[in-house]
């Protein structure tokens, strides 16, 4: 009888947990869907709120074009239509996976993005990954033993790096390693499209970006580990006789890495928006310069397409971060009662 009651209670609890999880999942799906719709609307609105006329911009400064010709061009670009019509056309195109046609780059936006994203992922993606690994490991170690001279020195170095504007850091590295020492080239992804040339060209920009990314991760991880190592579970682990390395990498780092997961999710957006200043210094054809040029040239389709990709990437990264949070921290998995 008692066993039967216990079984019922267990079933009830399981059902409650399941329905709670479902409710959470539905809530989250609704939240992401609403965010996506808002993003799509803002993507359309923001470029059009900027001052300036895309048609005049396309024509140039010193060219005289009659009003009739300007109107014809405006009609060809669909900019003479009322805003709501432009919006419905934009949504219609999106549903057909058509991101439009760039006014200035004379190519379908999807093609332009595909080319730029591939290179940006190579450049920023590698930097973010390296920065995450380097920053997390060094930060964890520095947080575990903050009093050692080496860690203090590393800490000072990373603080200095995180305070240095990336533009200046990139220019400094270029000046020293490319100009003074002549070890690296000044620009581009390659001279000839071979892996060797790409690695040679990418080394400096990736290093700069990785250092910059590592400095942020380092400082956050260090602070987080310092906080975590004072908790009872860490002291208990030591009392149990575990080695320092085991306590740090098996127990502390798991809890300390929660802020890093958030930061990585934010970096994911950065991954797709490129690193404008570093791209400018190293003359790299990436997403950063693409968006910058599109803003200057009022290239609405490119702006809409780029913003959409970035927004989707950030949404996806946030979803992943939610999942990783649940893996790293069991408290997140428990549904709120």
């Amino acid at each position: 009888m008692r066993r039967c009651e216990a079984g019922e209670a267990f079933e009830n609890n399981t059902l409650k947990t399941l329905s709670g999880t479902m409710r959470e999942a539905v809530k989250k799906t609704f939240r992401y869907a609403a965010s996506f719709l808002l993003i799509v609307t803002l993507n359309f609105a923001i470029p059009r709120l900027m001052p300036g006329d895309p048609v005049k911009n396309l024509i140039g400064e010193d060219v005289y074009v009659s009003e009739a010709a300007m109107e014809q061009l405006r009609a060809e670009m669909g900019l003479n239509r009322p805003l709501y019509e432009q919006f419905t056309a934009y949504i219609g195109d999106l549903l057909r996976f058509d991101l439009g046609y760039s006014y200035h780059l004379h190519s379908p936006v999807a093609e332009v993005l595909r080319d730029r994203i591939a290179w940006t992922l190579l450049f920023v993606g590698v930097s973010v990954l390296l920065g995450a690994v380097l920053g997390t490991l060094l930060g964890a170690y520095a947080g575990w033993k903050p009093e050692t001279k080496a860690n203090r020195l590393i800490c000072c170095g990373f603080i200095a790096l995180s305070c240095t504007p990336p533009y200046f850091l990139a220019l400094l590295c270029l000046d020293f390693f490319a100009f003074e020492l002549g070890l690296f080239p000044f620009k581009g992804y390659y001279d000839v499209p071979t892996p060797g040339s790409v690695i040679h060209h990418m080394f400096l920009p990736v290093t700069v970006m990785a250092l910059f990314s590592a400095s942020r991760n380092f400082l956050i991880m260090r602070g987080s580990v310092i906080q975590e190592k004072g908790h009872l579970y860490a002291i208990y682990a030591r009392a149990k006789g575990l080695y320092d390395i085991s306590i740090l990498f098996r127990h502390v780092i798991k809890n300390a890495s929660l802020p890093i997961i958030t930061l990585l999710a934010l970096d994911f957006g950065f991954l797709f928006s490129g690193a404008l200043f570093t791209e400018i210094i190293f003359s790299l054809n990436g997403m950063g310069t693409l968006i910058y040029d599109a803003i200057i040239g009022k290239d609405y389709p490119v702006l809409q397409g780029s913003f959409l990709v970035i927004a989707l990437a950030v949404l996806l990264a946030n979803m992943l971060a939610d999942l990783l949070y649940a893996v790293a921290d069991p408290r997140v998995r428990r549904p709120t009662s």
Partner: protein
Amino acid sequence: MKHRKSFTGPELKKELKRCFIYSVLLIIFCSNICLAEAVGTEDSDENLKASNGGFFDRIIAYIKGLLGLEEKVQSSEAETAGMQQSAGTEETVLKIATPNVIKSESMMGDYYMGIFSHLSNPPLMKMDSEGHLVGQLAESYDVSENNTCWTFYIKDDLYWSDGEKVTPEDVEFSIRYYGEKSPSAGWINETLESSSVSGDNNSVTFKFNKPYTRINLEFATYMIMPKHIWGSIEKPLEYTSKGPYVGCGPYYLKLVDLNAGKLVYEKNPYWKGKSPEPKTVEIHFYSSVDVATLALENGEADTYYKYASSYPYTGIEQLEKTGNFDFIEKTDIGLIFLAPNLKKAPLTDKEFREALAYAINYEELVNLETLGYGRVPNRGFVPPTMENFKETEKLEYNPEKAREILEKAGYSDSNGNGILEGKDRKDIKLKILIRPDYARTGELLEEYLEQVGLDSELRSVDADTWYTLKDNYEYDLTVTRTTPWGMLMHASWGSGYFDSRRTGQGVMHNLDDPEFLQLCDDILATTDPEELEGYSSELQDYYAENLPGIPLYWNKVVTPYNRQFEGWYTDPLKGIYNIETFLNIHKV
């Protein structure tokens, strides 16, 4: 309490072992460097110089060796010894650094690619060093008396890089193609009535529906394209390709590589004219001017080119120190000017503008903005390098005189607050609209106006807001610039910037004085050089007297070039980037 570290037997052994290993590694490293240097000296005399350097140099050379950059080491040393990498070999490569970044692989769609491609697809006409328009692909041209019919006689020895002959049909096709397909050349479509070609005298005739006197200038900007290639391309602006593109100039465009940041031009194998010396011309584009200047200093390029702009004045001294560069200095036909809003009081008052002209310290502007690479302009606006320049009175800084003119014209400070009042008895407060490029000039202007009792408000805005406010005449004064093409457009001599009948992003279109408009129409109605000279003189006098724009300084275009090359040629429209340069350039 500190404990002194003391080594016990096994620890001491361990430390000694470690020291030994480090010493051996260090010795291997140093001997490697020395060996590498020794081998290098056998291979090349150039490396002797490197090996004579300090130990640090050797380490760098060694690292470069490890990275497989030996060739670059040698070339880098050669660069410092006179940049012989581009000048001392049989197959010379001319490298040009530019901040004019190509954004799309579209020859007709990308603005800067179009400019650079004048090397491979030259226009019919060109400008010589004196600013005269002469034939390029055209041997000569005729124009009918009523200026509606233009006939261009095409040179007979021109061939496309695929071996086909350049025909008048190609020229006719190109001009019509631009008119139909390019929005900025829409005027061709609107005014071209008919066109015909003649095989007998290799000519092409364009008949316009109204007199058109500036065709020779307009046709100095449109590339000539091969009909047999582009005829099948329905949307040329959207046509993108990495190359090769068929061209009829001394070079053809072999490769466009945006990810490497370069355009590569190779010699046209069918070019029958004077043979150019460089086998290859490479245009390397840099997103940052600072990096472009560093690359130049480092010998990565032989010259620097930015359309309608100079090499940064701040970088000239540094480049001079390398000892590898000389400089061409030419006064630009574009200029920086103060544009008063001619549709709004008190700027509608000629006396007020006259006083403004005396309130500005031109010497200071020249020193601060051009670092001495400029000069105080004349009232006649037009710079001396422009065809039919007329010497008018030089602008003068005289704040006392400015104040005197203002008071005489009825602008007085009756309430004694130090600010002059307008004719409506209210304090004058001028709104100065400034683009980020001219922020410092704006601040200086604010000071100059204050000195003569004029209050002002500086409004710094981005380029797009500037266009909008300027087109809505929501300003009193603004600072802007003219480009070489801008000075030539419309009725030339900068008239296109003022004529109220025109529109455009860079133009002020605020002058509707019938005298000025008539002058423009007169210029537009003639092709006679003598008449044009007379009208240009009248126009410059008009500028000097009425000051619709107050020039702030005439600046120089400074172009650095590798001393190993000579034969550089400049024209007012495109600077050094013209076919004459590429045909004449040779190693010293």
